[in-house]
C-alpha cells in the first residue's frame, strides 16, 4: 500500500517499459541456431500444466527415439486402464534410485556393470579397411564382424565407431534391429529366446499357417527357414 497515489501504476509501467527495451532472447530457431556442443540435445524435463498435472501423455515417443535407450518410462495410459512401460523391465525400478543418487552428486555402484571384454582387433581392422571404413557399409561390416568373432563384442562396436566415425548409438541401433546380428556368443541362447518370444520367427509363422490350414504339410519352402543361426 503506497502513500503516493498512482505510484503503483507508475512502478508497474516502468517495469513494462524496461522489459520493452530489453534485448530479447527469443531465438528464431530454424533460421538462427545457437552455438551448442555437437551432441547437445537439450535437457530432459517433464513439464506441468497450470493445474499441476503432468503434461506427459505417456506417448513413449521420447523413449522410443532415444538411440541409447537412456530414457525408460512407465505409467498408466491416458484413460487409466493399462500400465504401460518402455525400456528393459529389469532396470525399471533401480534406475530411478540411481538417478537420484547421481543428481545428488554421489557415485553409484552399479552391480550390473561389467567392463566389456577386450577382443583381438586384428580381424576387425582388416574388415574395416576392406570396407574403406565407410559407415554406409555398416551392415556388411557388422555381418563380417559377427562372422569373425561369432558375435558382436562391445569392444568391436566401439572400435567400429572410432574408425568409421559413426556414433556408437547408431551402430548399436542398427545391430539391435536385424535379427541375425547378436551381441552374445551363439551358446548364450537367452537373447535368441527372448527375441523369439517377442517376435515369432518366420518358421513358426509358416508352421502356424500350415496348422491353421488343416494339418501340417511341412517342407514347403527351404528358403523360408529363419535366417537366425
Amino acid at each position, binding site marked *: 500500500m503506497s502513500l503516493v497515489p498512482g505510484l503503483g501504476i507508475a512502478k508497474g509501467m516502468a517495469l513494462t517499459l524496461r522489459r520493452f527495451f530489453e534485448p530479447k532472447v527469443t531465438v528464431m530457431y530454424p533460421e538462427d541456431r545457437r552455438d551448442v556442443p555437437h551432441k547437445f540435445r537439450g535437457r530432459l524435463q517433464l513439464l506441468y500444466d497450470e493445474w499441476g498435472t503432468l503434461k506427459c501423455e505417456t506417448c513413449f*515417443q521420447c523413449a522410443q527415439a532415444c538411440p541409447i535407450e537412456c530414457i525408460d518410462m512407465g505409467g498408466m495410459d491416458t484413460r487409466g486402464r493399462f500400465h504401460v512401460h518402455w525400456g528393459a523391465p529389469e532396470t525399471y525400478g533401480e534406475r530411478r534410485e540411481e538417478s537420484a543418487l547421481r543428481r545428488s552428486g554421489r557415485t553409484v555402484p552399479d552391480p550390473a556393470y561389467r567392463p566389456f571384454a577386450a577382443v583381438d582387433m586384428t580381424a576387425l581392422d582388416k574388415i574395416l579397411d576392406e570396407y574403406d571404413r565407410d559407415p554406409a557399409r*555398416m551392415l556388411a561390416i557388422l555381418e563380417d564382424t559377427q562372422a569373425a568373432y561369432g558375435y558382436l563384442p562391445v569392444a568391436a562396436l566401439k572400435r567400429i565407431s572410432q574408425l568409421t566415425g559413426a556414433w556408437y548409438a547408431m551402430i548399436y541401433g542398427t545391430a539391435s534391429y*536385424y535379427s541375425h546380428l547378436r551381441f552374445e556368443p551363439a551358446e548364450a541362447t537367452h537373447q535368441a529366446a527372448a527375441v523369439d518370444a517377442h*517376435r515369432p520367427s518366420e518358421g513358426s509363422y509358416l508352421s502356424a499357417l500350415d496348422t491353421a490350414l*488343416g494339418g501340417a504339410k511341412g517342407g514347403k*519352402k527351404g528358403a523360408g527357414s529363419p535366417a537366425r543361426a
Partner: protein
Amino acid sequence: MVKLLKTPAAWPTILLERADAADPTDLDAASRAGAFDGLRRVIRNFGATATIATISGANLRGRGGAGFPAAVKWRTAATTDASRRYVVVNGYGADPATGTDAFLLERDPYAVIEGAAIVAFAIGATEAIIAVRADATEAIRRLGAAIGAGEEAGFIGFDAFGSGHDITVSVRPVQGAYMLGEETVLLKALEGKRGQPEQRPPHPAERGLFGMPTVVHNVQTVAAVPWIVRHGAEAFAAIGAPDSPGTILVQLRTPAGDGIAEVPMGAPLREIVALAGKLPAGRSLKAVLVGGPSGGLLPPDLLDTPYDFEPLRSAGAHIGSGSLVVADDRACVVDLARILTRFCAGEACGKTIPCRIGTRRLVEIADRMLDGRPRPTDTILLEDLSADIAASALCDHERLTTLPLLSGMRYFRSELDEHILRSACPAGVCHPIAVAAGAIP
C-alpha cells in the same frame, strides 16, 4: 524346389519367357533368346526420354504391391536435380510363404539385370543395386555369375555397349527383418542403418538412397521392362487388365498343391486358384487369403474378383506379395486372421505408435475372441482401432495389418459371432473356454 504351375495356353508369358533355359546363367543361350536386346535398343536407338515414354505408353505399374506407375517414378528421378541417382531392385520377398522373387531371380537373372540397366540408363543412374534375401543363395550365385558374364561381354558395367555410360549392377544380400520388403526400409538397410520406414513425400524417387533420387522397383517390374522395349508398348498394354497391363507372378498355396504361376493382371481369382488343381474330395473352398501375411480373406462368392490392384483393394485385400493361400473348410477364419495379425504385429519395426501399440492391441482383441473371453464391445473396438491405425499409418505395413481381421469380420461375420456369442468354433479349430460371454470380467 519350387514348382512352376502350368497355365492355360492363352495366357501370355512375359516374365518367365526364358524360365525353362537349361542354364539360366548361360549368356550366349540367353542372348539368342533375346537377353540384352532391349538394353542395346534403348542405348543405341531410343535414348533416355523415349525409353521413359515407351514405359509410360505401356502403362507398366509397380509389382511391389502398391501398383504405382513406373514411368512416373522414372520421370521424377530423371528430372530431380542431383549429382548421382540410384536404381534399387527389391528382390527381398519378405513374405516367408512366397518365393516368387527368388524364383524369378534364379530362373532368369538376365531379365532382372537387363531391366535394372535399362532403368539406370533411362534415369541417368550409374549404379543399380539388386537386393536379395541372404538365404536365397542360389539366386545370389546365379545373379553374380550373370553380372560377371554381362560385364565381360561389355553389355553392362564400364562403358555399356560402347555408349559412354557406366551402368554398374551389383547384388546386395540383405536379411534380418520382415520389414525390409518396404522400400524406404530397404533403402535404410542399404545405407547401413536401422530399418525403419521414412515419411513420404519426399518419395524415394526424389530423395532415396543416400539422399539421392532412387527408383525402387520390385524384381517383377524390372523384369518386364526389357520385354516392353523389345515388343513395344502397345503389345504390353494389350495384355492383362486395361488399367494395369502385363503379367504377375503368384505363389499358390492350396490343399491341392503349391506352386508359382505367371498370370495376366485382371485374371479372375477363380481361374488362378484352379491352377493348383482340384481340392481333395469332400473339401470345399472356404476362404482365399490374397496378399500374404497382411492380406485379406475373401469368401468363395468373391472368386470372380479380377486379380488387379483396385478391385482387390475395394474387396478388402491387396496384391501384396503375390501370395494366394486357399483355406478349405478345415480352417477357422478367425484363427487364421489372428495368426496373420500376430505375425505382422511381431514384425512391426516400432517406429510409429499406431503400429507398435495399435497392432499389438489388435492381436489382444483377436486373442480374447478366440480364447472365449470376448468383451461385448470388441467388434466395435476392432473396427475403430483398425480405422485409426489405417488413418495414422506411416507405411503400408501397419495400414495393411488391419486387413486380415477386417476382411475376416466383413465376410465371415457369422463365424466370428459364433466365437463371440456362443464361445464356439464352427470349424472346430479353436477351443474357446466354455464360459458364457462376459462371465469373466
